């Protein structure tokens, strides 16, 4: 049979698929419609010297044959057309697309073979005479043997792997059933026995299980590739100063002792000491502190912090794997190990099921051989037991539900990254939030009530800086419809504030002690010399209050763990109605608190975004990170929010419970079907026809239960 060979030949062959040679991949996060496709392709095709450009809307990527045009030119061209684009390193994704196509090909081959053999079997079942049945069996064998050899390879491979490691997994009974059914039927056909042939059963088993496997793969690969995509987008770079010249290098290439230039808005790539410049340093990612710190020459800075106002020259003390980020990475690695040991429902079912199937099969063979002394008859019964117990429905039970739920959550703005995340999410009994960047947007809002003239002045000063306070003032002015005052001689003093001159005298906006105020953290000095303290608070996410209320009403205990100062945390907890709120939590303290909760028998869900949360995200029973989170946090989390809203958190908790209930129902259905059919098989009444009907109906009912609408 040649069935396997064209399949091999057509399997994704990157060299050939690349005749148009797309050597550059751009990530286009915002495209969503036909018009976007057209305008992106137009914009790219208008760039001179560029080869073929094709948009893939499913992956939100553009594959471009660059022909030597620099990526920056393309990104500029797309920006002019109104599209955000980023360079994407496909090397970080590995061969995920390949295995999807590969599985699909196997499904196709198994489906083709199953349908043809089924046609021949119908003739046998409806009573073809001896020689015709024999001919049909031989033809079936001719189709089935190569088809199974090709299609069922994933099962054989996994079963061999498990056996050589001295374990049993679900693929062992599957492989045994497929192989026994195939070989015994083949022997029967070649020797001219007038016995039932199980070719169709072997193929149907392969086909349905492959469908389950493919669903499982699709569900996870879309999530995984999106997660890897997030990581692939952030190849951190640094500006190294060598002999007075600046060069851009990968952050991983920096050595201790190197001088690094950090511009305002940049995230520090290394731990080090400031040699030149002063700035306000945003440490929220590491500590959860919402107010920036003023730092200057000689102060220590750590990787992950963001400089807000002034440029810095930093001498590297520790780089790469040695930075303070490292201890967070260690926390994460240890916890991930633990999490990967979590056995999902399917694994637990398989652990009970696999030995049972073997024992039943072997017992029926021995019993029948002992009773009838007919080896072929005993083998027939053993095969029917193996085929019937071999659970197509069980193979579909969990992946069908998780695929449907994952897709549903994706439409609601949530990415499920981990395979067992839904099951773990269903077991949650307490929800732990981080404050800065999770419940809040990380931006500030003005809470003082300013007169229009003061706001005009403050907003005018704020134009000279990109400090969070300045942005809050600009936003407040915009909301009130106040035009910022035009000021001359506007200067930012990094670490202190902004100063300018008016006709009536100098004005200042900045730290209270620098401006001359005695109270508050930030103040404004008017032209007449009087001082006005300004109060700011963090801006809550729009739906934070509703989400927290919804989660609490659903019966979960809600806790706030923050690295920020006690009064800020207490205020936030009061606003949101959270009873337990712990301030000044270091990254280790967060992880330790969650471990302690777990040891006390709780199942905490961690929702956090910063580097200081990664340990907690990894330790918690399940974890969610918002899209604005740092890549380390997104990597550690099981689910990633794709929008700016928190509402999907409550939705995910609900959906996970429904999903887990469906999985249990499905497994119960699959078991029920076995309870009914196994005695029939043991009694020797099972025929290939019965097996075919039972297998198809149970698989279909399980799939239907998975897609059934949710209330």
């Amino acid at each position, binding site marked *: 049979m*040649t069935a396997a060979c064209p399949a091999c030949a*057509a399997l*994704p062959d990157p060299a050939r698929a690349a005749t148009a040679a797309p050597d550059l991949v751009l990530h286009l996060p915002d495209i969503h419609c036909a018009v976007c496709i057209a305008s992106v392709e137009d914009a790219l095709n208008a760039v001179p010297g560029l080869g073929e450009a*094709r948009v893939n809307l499913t992956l939100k990527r553009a594959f471009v044959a660059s022909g030597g045009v620099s990526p920056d030119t393309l990104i500029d061209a797309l920006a002019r057309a109104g599209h955000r684009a980023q360079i994407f390193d496909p090397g970080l994704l590995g061969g995920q697309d390949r295995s999807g196509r590969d599985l699909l090909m196997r499904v196709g081959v198994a489906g083709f073979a199953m349908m043809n053999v089924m046609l021949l079997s119908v003739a046998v079942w409806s009573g073809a005479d001896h020689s015709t049945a024999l001919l049909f069996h031989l033809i079936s064998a001719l189709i089935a043997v190569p088809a199974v050899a090709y299609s069922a390879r994933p099962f054989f491979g996994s079963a061999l792997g498990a056996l050589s490691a001295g374990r049993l997994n679900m693929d062992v009974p599957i492989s045994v059933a497929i192989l026994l059914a195939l070989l015994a039927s083949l022997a029967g056909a070649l020797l001219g026995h007038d016995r039932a042939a199980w070719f169709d059963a072997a193929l149907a088993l392969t086909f349905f299980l492959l469908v389950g496997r493919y669903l499982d793969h699709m569900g996870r690969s879309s999530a995984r590739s999106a997660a890897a995509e997030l990581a692939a987008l952030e190849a951190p770079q640094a500006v190294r100063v060598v002999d007075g010249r600046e060069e851009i290098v990968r952050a991983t290439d920096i050595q201790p002792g190197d001088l690094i230039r950090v511009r305002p808005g940049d995230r520090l790539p290394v731990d080090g000491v400031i040699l030149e410049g002063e700035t306000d340093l945003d440490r929220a990612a590491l500590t959860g502190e919402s107010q920036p710190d003023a730092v200057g020459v000689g102060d220590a800075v750590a990787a992950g912090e963001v400089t807000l106002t002034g440029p810095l020259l930093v001498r590297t003390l520790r780089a790469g794997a040695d930075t303070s980020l490292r201890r967070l990475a260690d926390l994460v690695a240890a916890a991930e190990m633990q999490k990967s040991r979590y056995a999902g429902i399917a694994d637990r079912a398989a652990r009970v099921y696999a030995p049972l199937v073997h024992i039943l099969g072997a017992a029926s063979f021995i019993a029948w051989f002992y009773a009838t002394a007919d080896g072929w008859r005993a083998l027939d019964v053993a095969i029917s037991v193996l085929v019937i117990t071999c659970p197509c429905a069980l193979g579909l039970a969990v992946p069908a539900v998780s695929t449907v739920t994952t897709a549903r959550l994706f439409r609601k703005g949530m990415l499920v990254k981990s395979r067992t995340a839904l099951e773990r999410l269903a077991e949650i009994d307490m929800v732990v939030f981080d404050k800065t960047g999770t419940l809040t947007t990380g931006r500030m809002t003005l809470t003082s009530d300013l007169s229009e003239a003061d706001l005009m002045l403050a907003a005018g000063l704020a134009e000279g800086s990109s400090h969070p306070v300045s942005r809050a003032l600009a936003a407040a002015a915009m909301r009130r419809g106040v035009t910022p005052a035009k000021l001359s001689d506007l200067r930012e003093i990094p670490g202190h504030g902004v100063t300018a001159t008016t006709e009536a005298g100098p004005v200042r906006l900045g730290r209270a002690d620098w401006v001359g105020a005695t109270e508050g953290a930030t103040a404004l000095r008017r032209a007449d010399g009087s001082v006005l303290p300004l109060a700011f608070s963090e801006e809550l996410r729009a739906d934070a209050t509703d989400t927290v209320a919804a989660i609490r009403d659903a019966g979960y205990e809600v806790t706030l763990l923050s690295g920020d100062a006690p009064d800020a945390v207490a205020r936030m907890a009061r606003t949101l109605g959270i009873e337990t709120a712990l301030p000044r939590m270091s990254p280790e303290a967060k992880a330790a608190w969650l471990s302690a909760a777990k040891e006390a028998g709780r199942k905490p869900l961690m929702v956090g975004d910063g580097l200081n949360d990664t340990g907690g995200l990894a330790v918690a029973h399940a974890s969610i990170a918002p899209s604005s989170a740092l890549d380390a946090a997104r990597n550690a989390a099981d689910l990633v929010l794709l929008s700016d809203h928190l509402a999907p958190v409550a939705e995910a908790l609900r959906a996970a419970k429904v999903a887990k209930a469906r999985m249990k129902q499905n497994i119960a259905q699959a078991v029920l079907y076995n309870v009914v059919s196994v005695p029939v098989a043991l009694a020797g009444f099972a025929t290939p026809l019965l097996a075919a009907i039972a297998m198809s109906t149970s698989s279909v009912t399980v799939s239907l239960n998975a897609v059934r609408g949710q209330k």
Partner: protein
Amino acid sequence: MNVLVFLIPVSVGLGLLGLAAFVWTIAKGQYDDPEGSRQRPLDDRFDDAPKR
């Protein structure tokens, strides 16, 4: 029953034809971008010929 000599090869051959078509669609990458394939017909420029 002699007719089987023709019918069986014909039936298997038709099945193989279907399989070959399926293999061809995979090799052409027709399942790589279902979302894009759903949207592209809405744009006029693809009216005369689909983009390769």
